[in-house]
């Protein structure tokens, strides 16, 4: 046993797959110990906030200490961020449409460009062929670049509780800084938020855990059914073999995904918890295991050690447990790994069809994928809403397949290259 394990861990492929899988599993177990937020809490009022560090504006303004830093390129950075190349080209387009000769416009000369803009822009003016969206963009742009070149600070005013008049309480100079670590409310959203405004990373970790358990349950159910049927058909044979093989062949050609759709739909949204879905997946994917186990058992059935055991009067259960199972154990483990991986993929496929686990309790990788699809994260370029999920699913499946290939090479030396 120990020797076998040592041999397995000497296979590069297995170790690579195992490391990826262990990292994902450990991550999904340890993360919730550190970040204790409920995974489905909605924090963002809006959809798809991009990844980043969110600093409370209110707390920054009211920070007890501010620091003055004289940084040469601060103004340049500010202009670049608020008035970028695309905006400049848009401004040029507007100016040309407004009748300024193209030769007089220089998009690199910020000062001149802004002066031209200020004298010529008129939000009420209609340019032929301009869409409404474009017009709104220009209005937004106008207010955003207003006062861009000013070196004055901002005035902070608060309402006087008695008179209701605005009173200046502070000014913020352009060279004022706060230290992020001193701001009371900072929230890091490494993967942004999803369409409901939930922290993607926390949700993803929870979903990974749920999906792994769905895969594990589905894989276990499928392997148990497949193993039992395969053992019965292979060892006992006769009419039992015929019947089991008939059913197995039947379910080989009838697409299991279609069965899954039919069953899941029939169960109904309310009854479909993650566990139910897992069991249903298990019930529709035992076919390959049953076939393979049967084939192995048939070849084992007439080996000398099995015959010896039969002659010694051992019971069928004893023979199966002691003379058959140990010989197919490695195979069953490999089948289990593949079943887990395909169970995770099956859940994801079902969820995309809207037949996944009901959405109110726990997230799964498939459900997250489905939400991203419904809210068109892909078309809108919100990569953080689907790419991490895809990478997780693919890594889990890939790592398990690598482990399997590694095991296969250890147990079937003929396959080694």
């Amino acid at each position: 046993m120990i020797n076998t394990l040592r041999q397995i861990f000497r296979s590069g492929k297995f170790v690579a797959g195992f490391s990826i899988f262990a990292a994902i599993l450990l991550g999904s177990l340890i993360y919730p110990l550190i970040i204790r937020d409920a995974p489905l809490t909605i924090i963002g009022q809006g959809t798809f906030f991009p990844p980043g560090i969110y600093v409370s504006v209110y707390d920054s303004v009211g920070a007890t200490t501010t620091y003055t830093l004289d940084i040469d390129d601060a103004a340049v950075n500010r202009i670049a961020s608020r008035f970028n190349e695309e905006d400049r080209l848009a401004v040029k387009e507007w100016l040309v449409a407004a009748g300024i000769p193209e030769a007089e416009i220089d998009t690199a000369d910020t000062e001149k460009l802004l002066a031209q803009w200020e004298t010529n822009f008129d939000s009420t003016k209609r340019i032929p062929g301009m869409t409404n969206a474009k017009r709104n963009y220009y209005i937004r742009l106008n207010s955003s670049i207003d006062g861009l070149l000013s070196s004055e600070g901002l005035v902070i005013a608060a309402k006087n509780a008695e008179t209701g008049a605005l009173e200046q309480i502070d000014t913020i100079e352009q060279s004022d800084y706060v230290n992020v670590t001193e701001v009371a409310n900072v929230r890091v959203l490494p993967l942004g938020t999803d369409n409901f405004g939930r922290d993607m990373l926390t949700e993803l970790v929870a979903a990974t855990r749920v999906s792994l358990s769905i895969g594990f349950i589905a894989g276990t159910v499928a392997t148990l059914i497949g193993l039992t049927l395969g053992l019965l058909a292979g060892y006992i044979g006769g009419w039992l073999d015929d019947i089991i093989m008939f059913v197995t062949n039947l379910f080989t050609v009838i697409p299991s995904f279609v069965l899954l759709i039919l069953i899941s739909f029939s169960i109904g949204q309310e009854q479909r918890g993650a566990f139910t879905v897992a069991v249903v997946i298990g019930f529709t994917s035992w076919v390959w295991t049953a076939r393979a186990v049967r084939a192995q058992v048939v070849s084992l059935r007439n080996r000398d050690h099995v015959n010896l055991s039969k002659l010694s009067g051992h019971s069928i259960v004893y023979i199966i447990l002691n003379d058959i199972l140990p010989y197919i154990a490695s195979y069953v483990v490999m089948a289990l790994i593949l079943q887990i991986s395909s169970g995770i993929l099956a859940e994801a496929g079902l969820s995309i069809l809207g037949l996944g686990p009901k959405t109110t309790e726990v997230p799964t990788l498939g459900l997250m994928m489905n939400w991203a699809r419904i809210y068109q994260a892909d078309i809108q370029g919100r990569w953080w809403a689907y790419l991490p999920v895809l990478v997780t699913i693919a890594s889990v499946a890939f790592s398990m397949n690598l482990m399997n290939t590694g095991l296969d090479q250890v147990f079937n030396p003929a396959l080694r290259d």
Partner: protein
Amino acid sequence: MKGYRKYFTTKLVWFLTTFVFAFLLNFILPRLMPGDPVAVITQRVTQGMTSQSGAQAVYEQYAEQFGTNKPLWEQFARYMANVVRGDFGVSFSQYPRPVAQILGASIGWTIALQFPAIIVGWLIGNTLGALAAYLKGGFDKVVMPVSIFISNFPAFGMAVILLVVFGVNLRWFPTSGGYGFDLIPSASWGFVWSVIVHYQLPFWSVVLISIGGQAIGMRSMAIYELNADYVKYARFMGIKDWKIIGYVFRNAMLPQITGLALSIGTMVGGALVAEIIFSYPGLGYTILNGVIGQDYPLISAATLIITVMVLIANFAIEIIYGLIDPRIKAAQAD
């Protein structure tokens, strides 16, 4: 020829049996669910419906359609008779369109998308696998890990990646639909071109899904065949390499054909999901709409149609296989 007839008959009997069982499963699975299926369905359909008599009418319609008040065998006979006539009932979600009409509109899209895509994916996968086995070295070292990765990549994932890269970022192809939404189906060039352009992304995502697994299978088959005794003998008789490679790949390809028959069900499942990502107007998308609209007759009929299509494809592959592999005839003649 006698051997082949025997093979054909066996396969045909098996095909018909599977057919009947597929019908039976489709009929019985929803009826196995706990509770009165008609009541459950009615409740779902009538959510938000205030009129009590309206709900009652719906209930009666489904009780009639299911024939739940009759014995099971009669229900089955009725179901079979309806199916044979092409009568799948009336859709809930697109009332009063008959289900057969909805499916009729989408089935063509699915066949036109999946059939060529699976074949092309199979061909490319097998070519890559064969080349990896023959060339070995660097080519093999690149093709194999990529194939393993792709074959583990979920179908919808592949579709999303293609959509984002080629549809959203590069803007080469449209991201959804079977043709431009501003067009009316016609035989005009504009329409045909629109269909072709919309076809690309769904097509290639199904192709990519099918490549990986086939390449892996073909590679190991070809490696096995390359070491076969007949390869050595042919060399020693002075036959040229390209001719021997022809033998090897033909022989390695044959088991891959049965491989295709066995994996076609899985591929179709993946392709249905890919359809959804691209809102392609095929059966996958129809199922999605059925799920959203809680449209029981539509789902039931769609799953049955897909099963039957897969069965027919399977049968066709087995029949062709029997024709081109002489070993089948020899095995049957014994």
